[in-house]
């Protein structure tokens, strides 16, 4: 077995260190080492977006990033979206619009939508659909997800 690598990083605003094998993905590290299981594995090859996290301000599929690559970087996961003051407006709007059914894709959609609204606070429907095309949902047909994101944008999420 290859020697484990010591990695220092910031996850959800808190400094963190972990040991990981060179071959472990960021998704594996988040789930198995940091025990942050909110990021989900749907495909493990970057096709479904269920493992989306924000890495130094950029939306990525954590299954396509290696654990050692986050050395010195900043990672935001679904667990870092709400605050002690309560839910993020995107999370609230997902609930109000019933924008989830089984919920397995929901963390990825919320993280992706947050990354979108940080770049473009007032997206059109078409822009939301384009941005979220990397996130698969099999339950909702996307209708209520798109409405939730547009509504969150309208209240200044």
């Amino acid at each position, binding site marked *: *077995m290859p020697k484990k690598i010591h990695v220092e990083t910031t996850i959800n605003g808190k400094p963190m260190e972990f040991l990981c*094998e060179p*071959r472990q993905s960021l998704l*594996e590290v988040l789930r*198995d080492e940091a*025990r*942050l*299981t*909110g*990021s*989900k*594995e*749907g*495909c*493990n*090859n970057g*096709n*479904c977006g*269920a493992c989306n996290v924000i890495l130094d301000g950029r939306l990525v599929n954590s299954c396509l990033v290696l654990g050692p690559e986050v050395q010195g970087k900043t990672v935001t*996961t*679904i*667990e870092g*979206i*709400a605050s002690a003051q309560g*839910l993020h407006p995107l*999370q609230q709007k*997902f*609930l*109000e*619009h*019933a924008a*989830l*059914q*089984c*919920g*397995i*894709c*929901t*963390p990825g959609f*919320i993280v992706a939508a947050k990354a979108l609204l940080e770049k473009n606070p007032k997206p059109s*429907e*078409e822009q*939301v*659909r*384009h941005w*979220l*095309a*990397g*996130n*698969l*949902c*099999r*339950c*909702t*047909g*996307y*209708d*209520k*997800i798109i*409405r939730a994101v547009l509504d969150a944008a309208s209240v200044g999420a």
Partner: protein
Amino acid sequence: MTTLANGFKVIGTRPIRHDGVDKVTGRAIYGADMQMAGLLHGRILRSPIPHGIIKSIDVSKALALPGVEAIVTSAELTDPGNRIAELGEGAVNLKDLSSNCLARGKVHYKGQAVAAVAAVSPNIAEEALKLIVVDYQTLPHVTDVRAAMRDDAPLLHDDQVTESLGQPTGKHSNIAKHIQFKKGDIDEGFKQAAVVVEREFHTATVHQGYIEPHNATALWNADGTVTIWCSTQGAFSVRAQVAELLAMPVSRIKVVPTEIGGGFGGKIRVYLEPVAAALSKKTGKPVKITMNRADVFEATGPTPGSYIKVKMGADKDGKLVAAQAYLAYEAGAFPGSPIGPGAMCIFACYDIPNVHIDGYDVVVNKPATSAYRAPGATNAAFASETIVDELCEKLKIDPLDFRIKNGAREGTRRADGPIFPLVGLVETLEVAKRHSHFLSERQGDKETRRQGDEKMGSSPCLLVSLSHPLLPRGRGVASGFWFNCGLKSSASASVNSDGTVSLVEGSTDIGGSRTGIAMQLAEALGIRADEVRPVVGDTDAVGYCDVTGGSRVTFATGWAAYEAAQDIKRQMITRAAFIWSVTSEEVAYENGSLRCLVDDTKRLTFKELAEKLHATGGTIVGRASVDPQGVGGAFATHIVDVEVDSDTGKVTILRYTAVQDVGKAIHPSYVEGQIQGGAVQGIGWALNEEYFYNDQGTMANASFLDYRMPTSLDLPMIEAVLVEVANPGHPYGVRGVGEVPIVPPPAAIANAIYNAIGIRMEELPMSPGRVMAKLLAKKRA
């Protein structure tokens, strides 16, 4: 609490689901999230060939790899023998179920499980798989239903004898079963027809496509009891299946259903659960197995590819007089395709005096098919609803008027026998006919189309519509039918001292159902939805519950919650009578309050009485177990506008409206969600999705990228129109809503494509290549 216009206080409102916060914050625990001390990771070795005999399996090198703790093969599962058991998902042949978990002597499809490894990490388990040596004797394979039916086809099962109309024929073939439904006189019927249309259809194998791969974690304890945590549509069904496969009593198995990331019928049969249990038994440690996406495509689900021939005839007044169908469904590796429901549904939307239906269940070297949302009905409706559209065209009758004239109503007898109770097909057609979508301009000049776009208020793919404003556009409609199941459900509900109720029910919740069940309890008790705290119980925590399937949960488990509320009410009345020193007959329960009928000054709200329970004899627990019979049927009518790119064959959905009889919408948002999600699965089935098999019998597109389910960019908003024809067989009028919305889309889209370019599509999916081939053929002709 205010009473709504519908006469209810809770039903018909849209409260935030009880499990919502956990799911938007990433805290909800799904099966793959299970962590526990000493957990081992399991991986499955799968067959690289579609058909062959396993001559030997050598695991010695793999066992020697550091970190590997155990390996199991089918030798570790009890041989259940060739017998049929009722395991909560219909009858199952245990020999086939066992072989599908770990192959016994033979492999019947590429991807079939052959051996399993438990190791200290997933990566080591995967390395160990490469060290297992399996010697196969390759056999010829067959992956197409019609090829498999030929006399010279390679046989999957040497001992399989075709059964026809319930009797063994003595003939060995890949046809497991032939069924037949007859009504009237088919030859006489066609003699009365002024117009007859006949066509052949092919549909591809498609997958349920849930985003969460299958998983199971098992702990075989030193006392011989087993606990299994897994994502399943039915904890009790998993318990029954594992009990049979491991030859142990159900009482020694506890199944804990975790949150589940989609199922659509595909998470009822066990794949990993008995294997994880066998590995845990061998190691004495908990073992977690998860599938990867390719495993999910190649070894679970899918729903059948099919060949269907349909002939229908109508008289000159547009009355259907005869209908005939031949359906052949691919069962996959083992018998059990949904040919029965397919054959029952194919003409179920219509009142037709003369019908003849033949159905064939055929094994092929593909994964064993599983249920998928209205199993069998979508294939069938693609064929029959396309033929109906063509009849309307030839008779020059509006397709909705034709369906209203011929539509099934209360009292209509289906070809397979049953007579419909009160159903709402005609109501969906009437609503569709008045809907702005159906009334809007269908085709016309450029300006009209632009206005039409604005009216839609949703976003067809702009790249296409702006660059090619004159691409052909068309509109199609189609209807669909699917059954509702009743089956058994249990619930118990405890009154808390603060006036809330903790509800334990046994239906795993895939789409918000625990809230719909809690709302029925709240309505019955006269309290708010958020004053009920629902949880899904494990198999030791709640009474027996059948699977989350058959569009039955809100109907049947909701009914159990309703009955548990009646039980609470009876006990609350007794308790109030005790407190007031009157008889129970002198107490009334009204609007969430108790009132003394002989002393007007004596009143207690639900909450006030709840506070007094501990001091007056203890808490109150309501309970119910039901097996309701009053199921309704579900009907839907969909309208779709498409644009066809004549340079590429790509079909774009411009507008989509799904009208459905939902009985009574308990939580309208989640009813709409079922309709929207089902319609979009149907759109994917219609336009993109398909298992591509190469000549080696291998699925060539076993990834989300290549299988290509619809994304947000492929779709407009999906308008769900709820029609409420209350089901008289349920206390609140509930019908099952989850499955029927997948039935109409392929036919509706095919009809819209015809309307746009004058070409009848006879094969699913109607991918750009297939549409382009038809366009080029038309051009040449």
